[in-house]
């Protein structure tokens, strides 16, 4: 059998990372006739940021939704924290999800709650007996981090698109998850805020040794945050490597992502 996927440019690890947090092997996912993921492979280690690039509609969001068990995959293996996602019971899945932060592409803020309640929502359930004061403090700290401390009592409908994005980010980071899945965290933000967000993502990684999968078209953000990149084309992991390695590749499909952003 052909040996396709991993790193056509050779395995690259600038520094050593911990154990594998996510192990994806031969993953298949289709919607009827639409085969979105076709034999997708990827491994993410503890403390590592992996950026996934890919054309719009190629299945990046589907991939991370499979990782948190929002979508069921049909074939292949997908292990998170060493456990096969499709085989988990609801309770185990919920426990696992408390360790994962998920930033939705559409922010997905709870419309009927204020910003503060949005951030408190999962803290109250998984906060392990934090007092009201502690919770409020955490919420304020997190809002400070995304630069929206004075939005605390606003409703989501009163926020701009970029503000919603940042609140969504704060909401997922507040539980200090071990694994973060960012779905286009900087898309639609101005370059200054985008850079701030990228730095925040880096800070989280360094402070809590968080692993992340970051889906992004923003090459600046990718360059800042990625320890490794994977290019998804036609449902497979087409090319994988560091920013430097990938930007040297001449294959037109990969090059298309990097041509405007040479190192």
């Amino acid at each position, binding site marked *: 059998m052909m040996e396709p996927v991993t790193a056509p440019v050779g395995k690259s690890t600038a520094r050593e990372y911990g154990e594998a947090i996510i192990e994806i092997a*031969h993953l298949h996912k289709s919607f009827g006739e639409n085969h979105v993921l076709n034999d997708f492979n990827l491994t993410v280690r503890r403390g590592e940021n992996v950026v996934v690039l890919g054309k719009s509609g190629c299945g990046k969001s589907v991939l991370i939704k499979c990782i948190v068990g929002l979508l069921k995959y049909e074939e292949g*293996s997908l292990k998170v924290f060493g456990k096969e996602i499709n085989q988990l019971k609801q309770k185990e899945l919920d426990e696992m*999800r408390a360790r994962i932060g998920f930033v939705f592409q559409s922010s997905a803020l709870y419309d009927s709650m204020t910003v503060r309640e949005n951030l408190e*929502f999962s803290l109250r359930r998984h906060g392990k007996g934090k007092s009201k004061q502690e919770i409020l403090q955490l919420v304020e700290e997190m809002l400070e981090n995304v630069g929206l401390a004075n939005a605390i009592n606003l409703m989501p409908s009163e926020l701009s698109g970029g503000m919603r994005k940042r609140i969504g980010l704060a909401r997922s980071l507040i539980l200090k998850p071990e694994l973060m899945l960012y779905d286009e965290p900087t898309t639609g933000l101005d370059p200054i805020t985008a850079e701030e967000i990228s730095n925040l993502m880096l800070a989280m990684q360094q402070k809590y040794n968080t692993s992340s999968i970051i889906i992004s078209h923003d090459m600046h953000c990718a360059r800042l945050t990625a320890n490794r990149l994977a290019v998804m084309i036609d449902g*497979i992991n087409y090319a994988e490597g560091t920013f430097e390695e990938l930007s040297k590749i001449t294959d037109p499909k990969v090059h298309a992502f990097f041509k405007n952003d040479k190192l």
Partner: protein
Amino acid sequence: MLMTYNALPLFKFIFMENKSAPTVPAKKRKEPFWLPLLPDGFRDFLTEAGEISRFVTRFFKEVWFPPYEFKEIFRQSYEIGYRSLPLVGLTAFIIGLVLTLQSRPTLARFGAESWLPAMVGISIIREIGPVIVALVCAGKIGSSIGAELGSMKVTEQIDAMEVSGTNPFRYIVVSRILSTTFMIPILVIMGDAIALVGSYLAVKLTGAISLTLFFQEVFESTDFSDFVPAFIKTFFFGFAIGVIGCYKGYNSKKGTEGVGESANSSVVVASLLVFVIDLVAVQITQFFGYL
């Protein structure tokens, strides 16, 4: 080398069986063999009914166990109950008034005008009050639940809740169904009372009668067997309205169109169900009435 990756899935698909990975198939439910043989419309109806009953089963599985979302239940009860009171009250008042005005000439022809409070009272308490209030609520509450849950679904809020480790079914669906189940009976009682006041005013328009005398006549002519079955069925009305609104919203199709459709179809189905439940309830009451 890179270019060959592209064709690989197709190649594999045609030429080899992929046995390299441990395969974890997603569970699939088996379809009974006769289902595809049925006419389309009937099959869709059966499928939908099956889905709704699965939804109801899930409700009964989840409702007993903690965490109980009391805060959300109270908030919903306020939204569903208190906020519907003006509409329910106004409708009930007008119905009581009009029903009385319309019945008077008929009764007058038989010289039975003095039966007016009794007759109107019985019809309001037994039938018209519960059904009218339930229909108004099916419209107001059914559509708002359908639309709200639909847009939560479409904007991925339900997914977000699920990912945050909170059971969205319990937080969103169970709390709403419980609220409708217990609020609609209360609304019906209030609606009945207001309708009777409307009826009193209509009686008063043409003849002198005191409020006490009116209510005395109403309650003298009604008894336990008028009130209790009518009251019990309102719980089922409330339950049905909650279930349908939540089901339609929770399973909303993607896009804004999906939201409109959930709101719309939850009103239609909930109203229909109110009539069906009413019909069944009447049959059951009559059956026990003859024992």
